[in-house]
């Protein structure tokens, strides 16, 4: 639940999602759900020449189970807030 809440607060930010198949997609975080499935808008693939089939894809749904990383802007993260939330979850859980 912690990361679901965290990603909900990040909606509207530019992120780069790196998948387990090495595909990396940059886009605006549109929504996230309890499985950490991600919907991105205004997407563009990082290495476009390697993935020609993605040329006209502008919005996509990414299954949470295939995400390796979600790269965030460094100032998009309040690390202290996350740190406190994690401590609270650990205590409560």
């Amino acid at each position, binding site marked *: 639940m912690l990361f679901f809440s965290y990603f909900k607060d990040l909606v509207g930010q530019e992120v780069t999602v790196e998948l387990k198949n090495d595909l990396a997609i940059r886009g605006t975080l*549109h929504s996230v*759900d309890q499985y950490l499935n991600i919907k991105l808008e205004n997407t563009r693939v990082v290495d476009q020449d390697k993935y020609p089939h993605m*040329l006209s894809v502008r919005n996509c749904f990414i299954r949470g189970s295939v995400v390796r990383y979600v790269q965030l802007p460094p100032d998009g993260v309040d690390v202290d807030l996350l740190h406190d939330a994690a401590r609270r979850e650990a205590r409560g859980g």
Partner: protein
Amino acid sequence: MSWAGPEDIYLSTSLASYLDRKLLVLLRDGRKLMGTLRSFDQFANAVLEGACERVIVGEQYCDIPLGLYVIRGENVVLIGELDTEREELPPHMIRVSEADIKRAQKVEREASELRGTMRKRMEFLDFD
């Protein structure tokens, strides 16, 4: 869990906003399927109507028609909405027949298998 109202479709991560649209589905085995989304569920299982597989080998591509497909959600990597106002592929790519693309796939597969066996033969040498 409360039921989503009609407005929630625009905010949530449900696939409802993709219904009846032409989509690109990337699968874990690297396949690229295209078709119209007719149904989905919480596991991202999907029903694609008029599905075809877009096979790309180098600069060549071919769309192989498949018909009505039910995709098990665990195989889904990404579901992308194709923007009809943009070119689906770079203009330099050449459309070829199914037989030609299958031949090109075989050549590519054999080349990578050869690279694999050569690498295995070299691995015992333990270069750093």
